[in-house]
């Protein structure tokens, strides 16, 4: 794929400011990239603004030879309306036919796929999206601004059950009607769409780069891509058996706008047990894993597979729900935080494969991360606090899903609480039923995926009353500050607000959030461009095998 043709912005006033901050050492290179490309500056231009060689994602990607077949170990789940996708795996299969406007690269930058370029105005209330020219649907229709507008309207429709795009569209959704606000989406000309927000919003670009935002044909919004097979991608699905396998082959009847290398891609479903994946790898059933976890990271390396690692903001929270006694008592929550050493969770939970977290769910790789004083761990003080709170006799039941790292991490928390004198009971629930009540367990662990910005996570999980607020957390002061942070483009200013948000979360002892996970993938040496992606994305168009 020739990404270098992308005609993005060469510069943007705010991006210039970021560049100065980068040079002053206030921003990391990664943060700079996330922010400036989210404004519409091309990765190449962003690199040149800070005087670095444009070694962006497109040049890091090798050009594989044409042809070949690749087998990928991944769960094959039933496809549905892409807006309602709840697993990255679904998007990885459909990405062969349904592409995205923008994609998120492993280095933290954004680049256009169906968009040629995009730009935000200075206060981030208006975004102008320019479409790539010459893109065709595989039914022969041209890809136009009408398609993009129809998709935006579909994404904003919060009346569709399970449409998680509506939450990502933020201010574009009219809270009274539940659908797109009048005038929010404007078709300027056949290749230009303008998005108008009522208030500054910086989450549009990450939102439309996320996996449920697959772009469907204007007449097919809300349908299952498996039923119609219409898309802009180079592939078509020839075989789809849930739980068994999915097969994509290069569509010979379609003139794809870019390059696609492999003739055939097969997704092989080997269940959820990593031991079964490993046995199948030994039996040569596939060439690359979706994700390698825990001890299997070392095992796959031991049989000679190539390892790819990426640091992410994916994490686990072990949180009490404040709607349930005794966790409505801040002292109890504080005592829990004091008793647990994140380092122990990191070592026992994920074999030390990650970096330490600080119980506020903003990762050092997030642009607005603000450093706070280090956490203290003091089991004796925790015990004293527990006694004082009057809940010393309470039996703390900690629930987790029955799997590898989440269970182990929760066990590590339980063991440390026991050491500090808490009365702890552990409950392990099978994966098939765990999610029925995940927001309402009194004290349980949940995995959270990587998100591009710290404010995205806080909006999704910590704001009062939102659907995924599993903490039962409700703090008007926090919400107000978060609203403020949502509208700030300036790095330092947002970071200052973020520092307050982070310390509020720590002071209120909302959750344990002990570590950030590094993600691993293994593949055979001959597989090209199969590097791990922080959001588990696999774009079959880039993959190849050495002849």
């Amino acid at each position: 794929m020739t990404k270098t043709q992308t005609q993005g912005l060469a510069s943007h006033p705010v991006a210039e400011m970021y560049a100065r901050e980068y040079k002053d050492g206030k921003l990391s290179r990664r943060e700079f990239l996330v922010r400036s490309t989210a404004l519409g500056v091309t990765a190449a231009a962003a690199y040149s603004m800070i005087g670095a060689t444009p070694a962006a994602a497109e040049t890091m990607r090798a050009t594989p030879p044409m042809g070949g077949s690749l087998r990928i170990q991944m769960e094959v789940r039933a496809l549905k309306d892409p807006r309602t996708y709840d697993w990255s795996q679904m998007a990885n299969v459909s990405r062969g036919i349904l592409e995205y406007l923008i994609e998120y690269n492993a280095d933290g930058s954004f680049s256009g796929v169906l968009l040629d370029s995009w730009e935000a105005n200075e206060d981030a209330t208006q975004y102008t999206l320019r479409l790539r020219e010459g893109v065709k649907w595989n039914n022969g229709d041209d890809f136009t601004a009408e398609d993009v507008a129809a998709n935006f309207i579909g994404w904003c429709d919060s009346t569709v059950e399970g449409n998680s795009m509506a939450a990502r569209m933020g201010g574009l959704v009219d809270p009274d009607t539940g659908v797109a606000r009048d005038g929010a989406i404007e078709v300027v000309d056949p290749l230009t769409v303008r998005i108008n927000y009522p208030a500054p919003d910086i989450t549009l670009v990450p939102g439309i780069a996320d996996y449920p935002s697959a772009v469907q044909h204007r007449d097919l919004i809300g349908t299952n891509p498996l039923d119609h097979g219409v898309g802009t991608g180079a592939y078509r699905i020839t075989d789809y058996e849930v739980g068994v396998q999915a097969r994509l082959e290069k569509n010979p009847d379609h003139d794809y706008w870019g390059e696609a290398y492999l003739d055939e891609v097969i997704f092989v479903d080997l269940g959820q047990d990593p031991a079964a994946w490993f046995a199948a790898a030994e039996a040569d059933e596939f060439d690359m894993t979706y994700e390698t976890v825990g001890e299997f990271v070392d095992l796959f390396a031991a049989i000679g597979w190539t390892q790819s690692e990426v640091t992410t903001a994916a994490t686990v929270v072990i949180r009490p729900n404040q709607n349930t006694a005794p966790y409505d008592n801040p002292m109890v929550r504080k005592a829990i935080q004091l008793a647990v050493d994140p380092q122990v969770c990191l070592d026992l939970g994920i074999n030390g494969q990650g970096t330490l977290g600080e119980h506020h769910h903003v990762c050092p790789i997030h642009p607005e991360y603000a450093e706070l004083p280090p956490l203290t761990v003091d089991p004796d003080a925790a015990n004293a606090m527990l006694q004082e709170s009057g809940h010393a006799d309470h039996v703390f039941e900690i629930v987790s899903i029955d799997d590898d790292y989440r269970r182990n991490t929760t066990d590590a928390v339980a063991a440390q609480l026991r050491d500090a004198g808490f009365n702890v009971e552990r409950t392990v629930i099978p994966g098939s039923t765990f999610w029925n009540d995940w927001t309402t367990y009194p004290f349980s662990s949940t995995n959270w995926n990587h998100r591009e910005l710290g404010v995205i996570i806080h909006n999704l999980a910590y704001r009062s009353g939102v659907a995924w607020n599993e903490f039962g957390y409700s703090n008007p002061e926090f919400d107000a500050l978060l609203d403020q942070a949502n509208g700030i483009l300036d790095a330092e200013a947002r970071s200052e607000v973020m520092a307050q948000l982070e310390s509020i979360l720590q002071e209120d002892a909302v959750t344990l959030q002990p570590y950030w996970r590094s993600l691993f993938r293994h593949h055979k040496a001959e597989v090209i461009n199969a590097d791990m992606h922080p959001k588990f994305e696999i774009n079959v168009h880039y993959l190849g095998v050495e002849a």
Partner: protein
Amino acid sequence: MGLFILRRFGVMVLTAICLTFVVFFLTNLYPNLEKLAKTQGNARMTDAEVASWLDRNGYGGPLILRYGEWLGVVPGWTREGPEGEITGRCIDSDTPADIAPTFCGLLQGDLGYSTVSDDEVSNIIGGRLALTGKLMFWAFAVMVPAALIIGVLAGMREGSRMDRSLSTVSIASTATPEYVSGVIFIVLLASSTTGLSPWLSEMGWIEGRTLFLGSARSAMEGITFWNFTLPVMTIALYGMGYIARMTRASMAEVMTAQYIRTARLKGVSFRNIVLKHALRNALIAPFTVIMLQFPWLLTGVVIVETLFNYNGFGWTLVQAASNNDIELLLACSIVAVFVVLVTQLISDIGYVFLNPRIRIS
């Protein structure tokens, strides 16, 4: 005889109805429906969304009526959406509302729709059964002859050294369930880092990296000695010990019978005594046991197919159960009832031919 078969068939239908009702009842408990809604809709739906999803997809009515719909004795549900579009149990993209039948249940030959596979149950279950059929065939082909030989050899001379050693082997194999023996096989024979394979590969005795494959996935397309040995052995080993024990007991008993002693006194060779006089009588008991092994194998394939990633009937059952896929699970139970009762019927009829003293009806 005809009456007997008819009665057996009646029992089978009754059992199937009772069993499917129990399965239907359990899978339709509200927490299970909630799970279904969340796997089908979105894993993180709210309670209100779950309720509306269930209602829209026909899980709202009384349990007994929905069971009737599945059986095909109650008309399938229909529902008119806010924009006038009609959805219903018997309506899908191929059969729009105006030509859809009123009833579509088991009696009409419609096994229903598998939610997890997003496909008709009848499309799924046939292919999966065929795969399991192959696995069962090979398991039987290994298990039965091996078990009979071991049993007869052990029972020929009760108490001899051969009897004791063969009996020990068969007890050990019966006492090792599939999930233990399967794992041991994989570790010993199918790992490139532990067990026999690295050693054999170093000596240059095997071409690949492992002696056998620890995953039978490729066997779904083409069975080879390399990819199918371990699953077949795992199933066969468990049943083998049991059948061998039964054969041995029966053989030992026959060998002490009066007519065998007479034959020996007449000077008939030991070989002829075993082959011509003892064997037929000794095989009556094992025949029933072998037929009884079919239901046991059904549980065995659940473990083995999951362990070796062979997407057959057992694997489907696990998937259906863990995803609360109601209609797929019901179809699986019907198949299971059918297999159990038909093999029992064959066993009863076969008994008559082997032992003329037994009369049925």
